[in-house]
């Protein structure tokens, strides 16, 4: 039984010229302790998807799904809080992610208190210190009385993770958590997340637009475009045998260093640009831009499942990426 | 020129103002304000057509006549009459003209002095600039009413003196807004780029600086319009502004204060018109500001 399973999630917002469909017909399942990835360009709906799972969207959003289960419980709009309480989320910009007017000791204390309402002050303080140490911060004692603006971005991100762990979540969502960080710090944070996942049996959902992050940490990844999850498979398969043209375009656009086939010296880009959120094409969202599109593409393709490789495409790619170029 | 995609998905090139107008139309409150404001403006411009009588014409046999919709009201005195038998509707219209035109005069005077001084100051720089800005900062700590009252104390009561007083009180506001915007824009990279391109002196001022500070200054203009109206009316109400027989909204309310028990319509009808005008101005200025902000966001 997967830790989290959601089928056909749809999220839309009221917009200026009609509804904006941020997420459409997207399904996801995460096993306990698994590290999953979601990759997509900016505006593909990844953040909205994550926040919809946790019930963090503004009340103006319309959220609907066919099936949603978390931790062996059926989730309805009424008991959404089960998911909210069992998960945590960390964001991209540490400046915005920590309350600037409270010390981090205060913030840690508060979150821990909510999770252990009857614990003593000393116990809570101990927990806070151990959390800070867990995320790799040395001499945590001295950090408790300081404010977020007094730390560097990398340290703030670790503090964010510590805060997120305070409620012992079963699922941690990292929404572009490393995008703003320097390369070295980025890999440190990724290592930290992997270690924490293993130690605590905690599932991690990494959301990013950078493939290199996923190859390091995740086993399975989903690809999102214009609010649709188009393909889900093991990360390796996505890189070598993508079935969906969009995935292939994504993969092809990664500049490759080192050993590379001669024919892959051009960067490949799909024609056109990502459509604005209120003008998503009918049917397959990639339709107008896809080099393999045909008449069937005005109808949304069904999700095909082929030994753990799920994709929505009428004309999937059947060959190995490395062997053939088209 | 801006690109606009209409309902049918076709792209058209339209003038930027048209685009802003489309955005503005979506704001219900702002459109309502605009409607009311247009009515006010039309009525005030066409006062000679709308006002049945002169402001100071007294109808001796119709003192304290209630509004036309009340029990003893007469239709020829739409809003009723006051203690001297003057038709309130005409007084409201004529007084409104006085108040609003005085307010516009105030804004014109205050902004020209304030903006010019500020631009001069920032271009010249040095200790002159610093001392002038310090002087205006000091003035700004006072509520504008106190400053205008002081000027009126020097000059004596009267409408023209009140206009000068309120204008002097509003100069610091225009000065500081212009100055902070100017300093802000001067720090921007494009400013340095323009200077490197060779622009200097007057050209730098007119083609580089002024177009970019005109937005906030315009917003300050419109915000100050309602303040100016209020200030002029307040001075009139307190007895320092327009004096009888001059008609001005504040003066009307001030004079009729003593009779508010016998004839409450003398108070609440003129006041209501003033309030509606101010409210409409506020809705419109808020709407314009939101439209401009939204437009920026879309970019």
């Amino acid at each position, binding site marked *: 039984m997967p830790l989290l399973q959601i089928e056909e999630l749809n999220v839309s917002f009221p917009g200026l010229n009609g509804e904006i469909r941020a997420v459409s017909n997207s399904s996801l399942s995460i096993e306990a302790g698994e590290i999953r990835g979601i990759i997509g360009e900016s505006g593909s709906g990844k953040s909205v998807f994550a926040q919809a799972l946790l019930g963090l969207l503004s009340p103006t959003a319309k959220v609907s799904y066919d099936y949603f289960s978390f931790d062996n419980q059926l989730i309805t709009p009424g008991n959404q809080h089960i998911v909210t309480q069992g998960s945590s989320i960390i*964001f991209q910009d540490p400046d915005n992610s920590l*309350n600037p007017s409270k010390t981090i000791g205060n913030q840690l204390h508060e*979150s821990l208190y909510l999770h252990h309402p009857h614990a003593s002050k000393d116990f809570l303080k101990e927990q806070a210190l151990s959390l800070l140490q867990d995320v790799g911060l040395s001499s945590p004692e001295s950090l408790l009385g300081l404010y977020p603006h007094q730390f560097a971005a990398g340290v703030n991100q670790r503090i964010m993770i510590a805060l997120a762990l305070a409620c012992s979540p079963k699922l941690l969502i990292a929404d572009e958590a490393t995008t703003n960080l320097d390369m070295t710090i980025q890999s440190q944070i990724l290592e930290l997340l992997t270690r924490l996942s293993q130690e605590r049996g905690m599932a991690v959902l990494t959301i990013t637009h950078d493939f290199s992050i996923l190859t390091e940490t995740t086993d399975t990844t989903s690809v999102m475009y214009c609010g649709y999850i188009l393909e889900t498979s093991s990360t390796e398969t996505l890189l070598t045998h993508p079935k969906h043209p969009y995935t292939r375009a994504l993969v092809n656009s990664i500049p490759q260093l080192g050993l590379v086939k001669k024919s892959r010296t051009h960067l490949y880009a799909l024609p056109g640009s990502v459509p604005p959120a209120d003008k998503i094409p009918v049917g397959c969202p990639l339709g107008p831009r896809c080099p393999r599109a045909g008449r069937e593409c005005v109808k949304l393709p069904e999700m095909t499942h082929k030994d753990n490789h799920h994709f929505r495409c009428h004309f999937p790619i059947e060959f190995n990426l490395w062997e053939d170029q088209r | 020129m801006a690109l606009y995609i209409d309902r049918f998905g076709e792209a058209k090139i339209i003038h930027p103002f048209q685009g802003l107008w489309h955005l503005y139309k979506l704001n219900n409150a702002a459109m309502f304000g605009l409607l009311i404001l247009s009515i006010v403006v039309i009525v005030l411009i066409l006062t000679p057509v709308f006002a049945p009588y002169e402001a100071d014409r007294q109808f001796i046999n119709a003192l304290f006549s209630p509004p036309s919709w009340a029990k003893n009201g007469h239709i020829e005195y739409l809003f009723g009459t006051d203690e001297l038998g003057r038709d309130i509707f005409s007084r409201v219209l004529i007084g409104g003209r006085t108040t609003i035109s005085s307010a516009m005069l105030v804004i014109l005077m205050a902004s020209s002095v304030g903006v010019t001084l500020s631009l001069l100051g920032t271009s010249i720089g040095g200790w002159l600039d610093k001392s002038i800005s310090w002087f205006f900062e000091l003035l700004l700590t006072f509520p504008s009413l106190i400053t205008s009252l002081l000027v009126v*104390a020097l000059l004596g009561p009267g409408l023209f003196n009140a206009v000068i007083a309120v204008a002097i009180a509003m100069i610091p506001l225009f000065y500081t807004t212009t100055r902070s915007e100017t300093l802000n824009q001067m720090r921007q990279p494009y400013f340095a780029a323009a200077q490197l391109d060779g622009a200097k002196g007057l050209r730098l001022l007119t083609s580089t600086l002024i177009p970019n500070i005109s937005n906030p200054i315009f917003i300050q203009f419109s915000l100050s319009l309602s303040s100016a109206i209020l200030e002029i009316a307040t001075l009139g109400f*307190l007895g320092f502004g327009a004096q009888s027989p001059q008609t001005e909204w504040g003066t009307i309310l001030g004079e009729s*204060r003593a009779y508010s028990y016998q004839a*409450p319509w003398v108070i609440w009808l003129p006041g209501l018109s003033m309030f509606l005008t*101010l409210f409409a*101005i506020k809705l419109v200025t808020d709407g314009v500001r939101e439209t401009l902000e939204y437009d920026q966001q879309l970019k």
Partner: protein
Amino acid sequence: MLFMSKQFIRLLVMLLGITLLDFIFFELAQSSNTLIPVSPLEYLSSYQQFLFQMFQGDFGTIHPSNEAILQQFFIKLPASLELIIPSILIAWLVGVPLAVMAVKKPLGWVDRIVQFLGSLIYSLPVFWWGLILLIIFSTGLEWFPVGGRLDYIYDIQTQTGSALIDTLLSTQSYANEAFFDALSRTFLPILTLAMLPTAYITLQIRSHLEETLQYDYMKSAKARGMSHSRIIWLHGLPNAIQPVLNSMSLQFSMLITSTIIVEFIYSWPGLGHWFLVLVQRQDYLALRGALMLIASAILLANTVTDILKYWSNPRLQR
């Protein structure tokens, strides 16, 4: 500490500037009456004399009665404070909960009503509103007395200038009655005065709160299991109040303007009313001293708000 001393010095410098402006004002007023050409040196010595006088506590006297300005100032001040302090309290005590209620469900009917009423009240001219209240409640329903501080039949000695305190301190037999009479007369003026600040604070806090709630840390806090109310009150508000504190001096200006008008309408013997009478009489000598005192009070209040702003914002402390 360094900050406090800097603020204090700034206050002194501004006070000095005000004395200069005040002096110029007085000279301008005088010169319109007499045309004696005076050399710059004489101006300087007059200015010096002016400063010395103030140091000794002599701020001039009012023309006909020869009462000392300084004394009058401190008698009228408590009467104004009787109106100002409750208004500020009402503004915050009513404004903050209203803003929170409005923000809980953005664009819900509570929110729409609050925003609409707020803009409405904010554009209400104070003097019109005061008169309307008078008409409805005093002359109309006769719930409250029409004006003045205390009924004439009570002869209460003026000790502090605040009628509420004076009636309590009085030893007369009708002291308690007088107290309630004074109290009843405070209702309408405070209601009039408090309207504008309340509307302002409600609208401002609501808008900043809405902005703050969009920030990521609100979402992560919610994901950590914090209830919505807790987030709004303990996390959202402290951050939303910041910008409002920054505009405190603007609010204070608005409040002073309204106080002058309210005191005029209700014949309230406070500083505003006093100032208006002096302006009307064109008593320049009295105005010179009165202006100094009123300006100092305003500057002091501004400095206090600046210090408050600094203390409440941890970011400014580094």
